[in-house]
Each structure stands twice: as structure tokens, then as C-alpha cells.
């Protein structure tokens, strides 16, 4: 296919497509409410749908098979005993519920939801299915972790109209060991505005031709973990374990492809890939548990009891011991905030969401979905430049009060979760920032990571309590940029990428820079 044919193929992509009827009606009502609160005439069709839904719920409850959940309505769940025989023949809701535990777990959690319009369901194998007609959806997750089951029932007769058994994650493709360490590249020079310089050793961890990208770094004691591989591609994915005492590298193959998100908690490293949540031994990288979850970029969280797994439209709670589903929370919509889309796990006992149009942070009760506080983010940043779902906790930093951080363009807004008040702004990016020993470290890539690196990148030091940058160190090579700073083994580490020429080629960022914290402190002291 030549360029002309390719462009023609792209131009032919567009054709008429209708949104789901219920989406159109719901948005219309929302817009009317936004336009003029007094004009709240709801279409008769919505009323009819609501009445139908209520009637169906009544039937379900009357059947005795379901009890009302304390969770976000409309949602019903029931504990199903083991041992029932799989069934796929049409039947009523009660029959369907009894036929559910075909996955043979010791317990199955069944969540039954009336879906009034089109919806997308994520399947644990990383795919999704979409439906556009009203239906009941019954979703089952078992402690056996074999997968979710989705049974769709039509809106009238409650017959089963489709029966899907999700496919468990596919076996890991065979991977080859990562190449050994190659020659270290030239040191990276960093320069302050007044000419002070720092020289950082640069370590090669893999062959750029063989591995596509270092996504992120995580630290655990003296061990640094680099996550290598690009999501949704079939290239092998690796963890690279780095002993910060010796700089020795050990590749560890990941089953199931590249990670979408990684998090460290509960003495383990958690990797979310396109079909599963993996628990890794924090010392060896060995996979010690695997739970099927939907594919999503959101990292998982842990509140001491449950793993919180964000997904499109909500968050699921999973038992860390059994992998079984504990609770399903839908969070996509909220009265008065049409953009609401909560990605992160809860922090400080709440879900957090930023309305970019108003600059208001909503603190939300995860059980009821209602606001428990609203906090204005102040006028030092343009809220439109903030990420609607970029709110994360800053917790347990010695000498610093805990804070909620909203990520905005080139700045980070701090919120005090104890008083639900705006604290101030750190004039450094939140993405990839790390805070250590009273200093906030961020890296800036001109034009973004994939951007036009005509200018050098920068390493920024700031006061995590707020205020302007304390120091900016520019990278010495024009086409060099860095990201993912983290402290391990008394050094600041980050990934560096380099381009041979502006706008030409791409190296795939397979090097790490390491700067001893003592050198950074000394350089900053000299500047004061």
C-alpha cells in the first residue's frame, strides 16, 4: 500500500453512526439542566424506562434470589453457593442466578445491573463487548479467579439473550532473555542557570532494537525495577531488576505482555496488564498471584483490606487473598458534573475528581457516590490545563503533611485532605514527580515525551510545600530529555531518551541516568 492508498483508506473511515438512544436522551436532559435549571421537563420515554426498570427490579427482588446491595443503586448482589450446573438455556432471572456458578469457585459474587442503554463491558482477556439495547447484565466473579461471566437478559421476558464466558488471560508468549548490558553511553551533563554542572553516569539496560520502551521505574529498598515494553504490542515485556549497590541488571520476563500500570503496596509489586492483575514478589519479580481484570491504564490501589481496581465507568474492589470480587462501584456520572470520570483508587477514604470547567475538586463518598466536600483549586492555575482524573495522594513524606495533588500543566495543586482546603501550588509538574528528603523532583520534556525535543529537557527541584522552582538543571545535549525520576540507593534515577537530530528518528529510551543525591544537594547548596 503506497502513501496515496493509505491516505485514501484513512479518509474513507468516516461514515454515519448513531449514538445510543438513551445516551442522546440523557445528554439532552443534562444540557437542558445546564441551560436553565427551571426547564427540567424529562421526556416521557425516560419516565417509561424508569418505570420499566423499577418493575423489573421488583420482580427480581420478589423472586427471593436477590437482596438489595448497600452499594450504588441500581445494583443487586447475591452470594451463590457452589456446585450448581452450568446452564445456558432461556429462563427467568432466578434461574439464571442459580445457573451462574459454573466457574466452580468456593463463592461467587453476582452483580446484577439494569443497563438502560448502550454499554461496553471489559472482559478479562483484554477485549470488550458492546451492546446497544436495554438489558439486564449479570456479572459473576469467583474466588477461583477463572474469569467473569456475563449473562445478558432482555428487558421484557427476562430470557437469556446472550451468554458469555470470559476467556482467561492467554498464556504468556515465549520470550527470550534481555540482552546483556552494553557499553555505557557518555555521561549526561546537567547545567544550572549560573553554569554549575552535574555529570550523571548513564547506564544501558537493553538493546533498543529488541525492547521498545522503558515505561516506568519503581523502587523497593536497594532494588530498582524498570518496566520495559509497550502496552498492546506483541513485543516481549520485561521487568529489569537493578541492584543499586552494584548496578547489576537481571531481566525477568512478564507473562501476558507489557504492563499498563504498576504500583507498589502491601510488600509486593502489582502489575496490571491487558488481562490480569499480577502480584509480584518485590525482591525476585516472580509472579505469585494473578487475578483476571479488565484492561485499563489506571493503577490499582490498596486500602489495607481490598484492592481497588479502576475500570471504565467505575471501580471494583478485589479481595487480595482470594482474588474474588468484593464490590462494584459505578462512578461515571454525577449530578452537576458532566465530565466526571474517576480513575484513581480512593485516597484518604474518598474518591477524587476535578471538574475542569469550574476548577472545583469533588471529594466523593465511594459508597454513595455523593460529594462530601468541594474544594476550589485557586486561581494560580487554569483549571482547563489540569487533568480531570489526575488527582493522587502524597502520603507519608517525612516533614510534610499529607496532601492530595492535582496535576496541571507545569504545576501541581496541593489540597489538604484534613481540612478540605486549597493549600497552594508547586511550580513543577506532578507527572512523574518524586519527593525525597524535603525536595520535589520533576523532569520536563519539551513538547511532551513524544514531542519536539528541539530544546533540552530539564530537571526541576521545588519545595513540596508549594512555591516556585528552587533550581532548574538543563540537560546538556539538545535532543535529550528525561522522565520517571525516583530515589533508590541514595541516588536519583531517571529514564533518558535521546534523538540524534531534531525531528529525526527515535531512540527508544533504553538508558537510565543515576545522580547521587549528595551531588545534587551540593550543587543546590552552591547555588544558594
Amino acid at each position, binding site marked *: 500500500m503506497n502513501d496515496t492508498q493509505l491516505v485514501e483508506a484513512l479518509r474513507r473511515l468516516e461514515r454515519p453512526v*448513531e449514538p445510543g438512544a438513551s445516551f442522546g436522551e440523557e445528554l439532552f436532559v443534562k444540557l437542558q439542566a*445546564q*441551560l436553565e435549571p427551571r426547564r427540567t421537563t424529562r421526556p416521557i420515554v425516560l419516565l417509561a424506562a424508569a418505570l420499566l426498570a423499577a418493575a423489573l427490579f421488583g420482580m427480581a427482588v420478589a423472586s427471593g434470589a436477590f437482596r438489595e446491595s448497600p452499594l450504588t443503586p441500581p445494583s443487586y448482589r447475591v452470594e451463590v453457593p457452589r456446585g450448581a450446573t452450568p446452564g445456558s438455556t432461556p429462563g427467568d432471572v432466578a434461574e439464571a442466578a442459580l445457573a451462574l456458578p459454573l466457574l466452580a469457585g468456593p463463592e461467587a459474587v453476582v452483580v446484577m445491573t439494569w443497563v438502560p442503554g448502550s454499554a461496553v463491558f471489559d472482559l478479562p482477556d483484554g477485549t470488550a463487548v458492546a451492546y446497544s439495547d436495554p438489558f439486564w447484565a449479570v456479572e459473576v466473579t469467583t474466588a477461583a479467579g477463572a474469569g467473569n461471566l456475563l449473562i445478558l437478559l432482555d428487558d421484557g421476558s427476562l430470557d437469556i439473550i446472550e451468554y458469555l464466558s470470559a476467556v482467561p488471560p492467554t498464556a504468556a508468549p515465549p520470550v527470550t532473555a534481555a540482552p546483556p548490558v552494553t557499553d555505557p553511553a557518555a555521561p549526561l551533563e546537567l547545567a544550572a542557570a549560573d553554569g554549575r554542572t552535574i555529570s550523571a553516569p548513564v547506564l544501558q539496560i537493553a538493546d533498543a532494537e529488541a525492547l521498545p520502551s522503558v*515505561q516506568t521505574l519503581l523502587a523497593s529498598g536497594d532494588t530498582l525495577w524498570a518496566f520495559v515494553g509497550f502496552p498492546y504490542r506483541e513485543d516481549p515485556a520485561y521487568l529489569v531488576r537493578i541492584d543499586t549497590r552494584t548496578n547489576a541488571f537481571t531481566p525477568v520476563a512478564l507473562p501476558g505482555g507489557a504492563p499498563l500500570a504498576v504500583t507498589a503496596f502491601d510488600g509486593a509489586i502489582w502489575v496490571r496488564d491487558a488481562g490480569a492483575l499480577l502480584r509480584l514478589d518485590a525482591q525476585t519479580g516472580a509472579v505469585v498471584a494473578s487475578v483476571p481484570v479488565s484492561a485499563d491504564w489506571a493503577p490499582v490501589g490498596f486500602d489495607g483490606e481490598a484492592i481497588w481496581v479502576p475500570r471504565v465507568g467505575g471501580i471494583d474492589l478485589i479481595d487480595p487473598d482470594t482474588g474474588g470480587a468484593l464490590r462494584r462501584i459505578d462512578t461515571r456520572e454525577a449530578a452537576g458534573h458532566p465530565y466526571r470520570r474517576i480513575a484513581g483508587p480512593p485516597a484518604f477514604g474518598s474518591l477524587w475528581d476535578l471538574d475542569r470547567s469550574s476548577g472545583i475538586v469533588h471529594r466523593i463518598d465511594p459508597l454513595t457516590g455523593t460529594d462530601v466536600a468541594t474544594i476550589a483549586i485557586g486561581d494560580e492555575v487554569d483549571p482547563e490545563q489540569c487533568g480531570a482524573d489526575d488527582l*493522587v495522594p502524597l502520603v507519608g513524606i517525612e516533614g510534610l503533611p499529607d496532601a492530595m*495533588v492535582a496535576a496541571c500543566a507545569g504545576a501541581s495543586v496541593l489540597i489538604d485532605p484534613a481540612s478540605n482546603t486549597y493549600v497552594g501550588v508547586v511550580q513543577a509538574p506532578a507527572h512523574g514527580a518524586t519527593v525525597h528528603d524535603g525536595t520535589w523532583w520533576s523532569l520536563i520534556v519539551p513538547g*511532551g515525551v*513524544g514531542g519536539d525535543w528541539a530544546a533540552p529537557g530539564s530537571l526541576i527541584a521545588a519545595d513540596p510545600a508549594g512555591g516556585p522552582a528552587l533550581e532548574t538543571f538543563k540537560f546538556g545535549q539538545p535532543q535529550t530529555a528525561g522522565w*520517571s525520576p525516583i530515589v533508590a540507593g541514595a541516588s536519583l534515577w531517571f529514564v533518558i531518551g535521546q534523538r540524534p537530530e531534531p*525531528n529525526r528518528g527515535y531512540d527508544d529510551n533504553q538508558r537510565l541516568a543515576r545522580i547521587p543525591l549528595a551531588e545534587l544537594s551540593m550543587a543546590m547548596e552552591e547555588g544558594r
Partner: protein
Amino acid sequence: MTPSLAEQGLPGVLGGVLTDDVAFRAWYDATLPRVYAYLYHRCGRDRALAEELTQQTFVDAIRTHGRTTADDRVKWVIGIARHRLADHFRALERRERSVLRLVSDRRAPEVTWVGPREADDDVADALRRLPAAQRAALVLRYVDDQPVREVARLLGRSEGAVESLLSRGREALRRTLGDER
């Protein structure tokens, strides 16, 4: 600061549409499918994402209509949708390759649709697998037929960078399609 149209006594682009229930309904019914289809085919044929971007577009349209005038209301709303799409791609790019340790992040999952595949689904699938920056450039330049200068403005990049993205994107797309066929 320039006074708003309302302050100047002028109607916004939606004029009397917003004050008349019947006119608003007619405008909405005529515009919704156009906006939705525009976003659906450009954001990876992900219905949930297309709905979210559509919602943002309409909310923005009502919120900002008083700041401008335009002869073609649909074209004006599509312009807003284009900005939302560019925002989406920029966020996607940031998420693809940024560090997720401090900031939580997400992206819509890959979607496999049930039902018969359409003739151009392989092109749409291949496009969806590209890095966000290349995908954004290809979509805005070729699907949306925007000039390179406008693509550069929407993505916050130089024209040279956009040309480079287009070149790499075409090559990657060709390679992906070649692998599948």
C-alpha cells in the same frame, strides 16, 4: 479585555436556540449524530469514549456559545469537538509514556466489537494501535483534512514535528496493515 457578545448586546452563535425548547431540541437532534459520528471514527470507534467526548463537546458549546459568532452552527460545534479530540490525544500520549507512580492515569481499553466486521475495520484497528502522537497527527491531517499548520496548533507542536509524526505514522500504519494482510 474584549467585552463578550452579550455585553455588546449581540447574540452568540446559538442565538435564540437556547431560549426556545422546540428550537433547542431541533438543533440538538440535528447536531448530535454529526458530532458523535465525527468523534466515534476518530477516537478509535470506542462508544464509551465517543459518548464522553460528545458530552464534553455539547457542554462546552453551550458554555461558550456567547463568545463567538459563526454562520454554520454544526461546523462550529465540530470545531469544538476537534479541540476535545486533540485534548484527548494529548492526554493519551502523556499517559502512554509518562510515569504513573505519583499520578493515577487511565486510558480506554482496546475494544473488540461483537458483530460482523466492516471493510475498513482493519484500518481502524491498525490506527488504534499506533502511539497516540502519530495517531493524532494522522487523524487530524488525513481523516479530518486539516492543514499541517492547524494540526501543529491543535497538538501544540511545530510543523516540522507534525511532518515527522505523519511520516512515521504512515510507515507504522503501513507496516501494521502489511502484517495483518
